[in-house]
């Protein structure tokens, strides 16, 4: 094929989402700053700003805008932001299943959700949601300490088994996000 691949076409400030948006890598991000950066870049590079230009320019703008939107999406979501940081730090996800204790907790929550929605128990649903939100916030706080500590020069060896701790907190965060989505949908169905 004679058409160059998109990555060869628009390689500019390369690298991952942090590099592309020139946001200093950290888990505890200033989300307002992130939005502002996204807005400024969109305002300048959205394909609509090049409506009268040639197809080549519009395509280049489109590819840039897609990359900017994708990077914004990655950094805005705490789970993908944590995964990206872990990858940047060269942390490898431990093989094998999550801890038995965590899996049991997940099963209990799922059952509680099923029971509450079957019984149309709004108060219990709200309780489950608030409990999970608190868990999510704890996982987030733990990741700020762990990941941002590593980013600012801490060595994995210096900490108490940090790699598995990082991935355990990411798993908790991911699980909480999924559970909250499902539980809130159930709550909507009730009201």
């Amino acid at each position: 094929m004679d058409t160059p691949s998109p990555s060869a076409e628009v390689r500019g400030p390369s690298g991952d989402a942090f590099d592309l948006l020139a946001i200093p890598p950290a888990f505890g991000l200033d989300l307002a700053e992130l939005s502002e950066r996204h807005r400024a870049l969109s305002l300048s590079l959205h394909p609509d700003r090049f409506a009268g230009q040639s197809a080549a320019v519009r395509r280049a703008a489109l590819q840039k805008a897609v990359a900017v939107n994708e990077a914004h999406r990655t950094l805005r979501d705490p789970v993908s932001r944590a995964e990206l940081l872990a990858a940047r730090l060269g942390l490898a996800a431990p093989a094998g299943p999550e801890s038995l204790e965590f899996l049991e907790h997940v099963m209990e929550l799922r059952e509680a959700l099923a029971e509450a929605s079957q019984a149309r128990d709004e108060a219990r649903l709200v309780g489950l949601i608030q409990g999970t939100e608190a868990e999510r916030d704890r996982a987030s706080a733990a990741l700020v300490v762990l990941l941002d500590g590593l980013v600012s020069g801490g060595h994995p060896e210096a900490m108490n088994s940090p790699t598995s701790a990082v991935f355990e907190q990411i798993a908790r965060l991911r699980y909480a996000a999924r559970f909250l989505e499902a539980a809130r949908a159930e709550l909507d169905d009730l009201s």
Partner: protein
Amino acid sequence: MLLDIFDPKAPPRAIGIDLGTTNSIVAVVRDERPVALTTCDGEALLPSIVHYGASGSVLVGRAARAYLERDPGRTIASVKRYMGHAHADHSAQQLTNIVLAVPSTEAEEKTVRFDLGDRTVSPVEVSAEILRSLRQSAVDQLTHVGGVVITVPAYFDDAQRQATRDAARLAGLEVLRLLNEPTAAALAYGLEAQKSGTFAVYDLGGGTFDITVLDLMEGVFQVRSTGGDSQLGGDDFDRAIAARVLQLQGFAAGQSPPAEVISLALDTARQVKHGLTEQESVQVLVPVRGGAEATFTLDRRALRELCQPWLDRTGKACRRALRDAGVEPSGLDGVVLVGGSTRMPAVRDFVRETFGREPLSDIDPDLVVAYGAALSAAALSGQGDDVLLLDVLPLSLGVETMGGGVDKILPRNTTIPAGARSTFTTYADNQTGFEIHVVQGERELAQDCRSLARFTLRGIPPLPAGLARLEVHFSVDENNLLEVRARETTTGIEQRVEVRPSYGLSDDMIEDMLIAALEYGEDDLERRRTADATVEARRVLLATKKALAADADLLEPGEADRVQGAVLALEQALEQGGSASGALLNHRVEALDHATREWAGRRMNRAFSAVLAGQDVTTVAKSVAAARGVEAHVEEHEQGRQGRGRGSE
């Protein structure tokens, strides 16, 4: 009637069209303000009704409405509800006067058709008649009509959008953008009513419901979430009332009365509904069996009870949209009402209860969407306010997985343009082909989502199950068009598919309809294409010269010569002119495009770095200004073309 003073040098004016279930409107920006143009009925609102006479005549608007009772079988109302739908989507017909044609082939099953008695028509053709009428009104009042922005419900899926595009093409309109209706309304509020902050737009029309949450900020309007139901609207209220009327007339539920009787009952229902907007209670006389008359009475409370099931559905969509946007009702700066059905007190009360605040209706809810479309058309053709709209995907896009599930590659409410990839693997030993089924929707099973495309990646090397790596990449451009690429990463075998959702009418069929609709058929089409190719060639040429003036330093050795060569070749083709030059021009434009491709990427990177370095205002404003300059030249040319070649209008 407002008329522009005739000016032969007037540039073509971009227009906005609200193609509604009940009414359609065409608007334009005049002296920086959006105004609705007068339609063939002498009013802004053109009823979206088409009547096909037995003699072949076609009537649109109020003239067509007069036939709803006299000739219901040949009169189509609420066609928007059928756009992009298969016959099976409507096989369980609700109370309506429309007769569907029974499909005789598999191809015919894919698109619903209306049976007029002596022939059938598709929803696309019916919509095209409405658009053609609006276009004619615009041509009569503006002389030179440019591109058009047509609004669609945010919740329209790809097939419904494609059907709308095809209707515009049939009507001879150049579509600049299909704009989501609530976004259009928000644009009108942001620019006209000078609102800023986070708003919810509650849009209940005749046949569709949309809810959108968005941020209105200086220069950027960003949609945060959208949701809705493309099969819910004021028509449902009419049918619920009509069912009561028919009951009073002596028709049992489930019984199907003659089409004339249904038409009359629906008309009575609409009168009652409209009456209840002003009055607490309405009484009308209706004929009953045996020639007598009976009094049908309905008050506001009873209407609210009748509407409640549908209102609850809108409430659920509202809560989900707020949740997706991460906003509480109290965190909103306002709730905007859009669509004729929001005039109903029952709907206003419901919105007030749901959002806990008095909704806004500063701008006429019937016109606000068309105003937004006109403002967007002006902005996209460089004639209006400098505002950028960042819209989102209304429905998730994904790939069917083993076992019939869906892997959502781009979730709903992702900002567009968007791209994402996902990796799959083979499930059988020595599997050499991999079928990719692209689906759209929120349901967990692929069979419950809308199927957009299927294609097979072939030539995968025979490997044990699970070893081949298939990377599927989705990208959606600013027009909401999806492209899917699939690549086997160990061998690099790649396939690209531009997903054009098929809803039963193929490109060739649309082409045939287009030729049939033109006075001189194929010759006319050829002339139009040559004219379009000339406009595009001049645009590209000018843009390239401006780019050379600004960014020639980014050209690599050898590349400069190739670009210059392509520019010269295109200039020569333009000088040649002649009737057969369309294909040559397109070819040379493509060659120039190819020669400038990598350079364009480098120029974009320069602009990108400038933004990051905080110089966005100067650098980027320059390139935008360059684009605007191009428009002026194209307009000049466009005029010449319209002045010469449009004798028939």
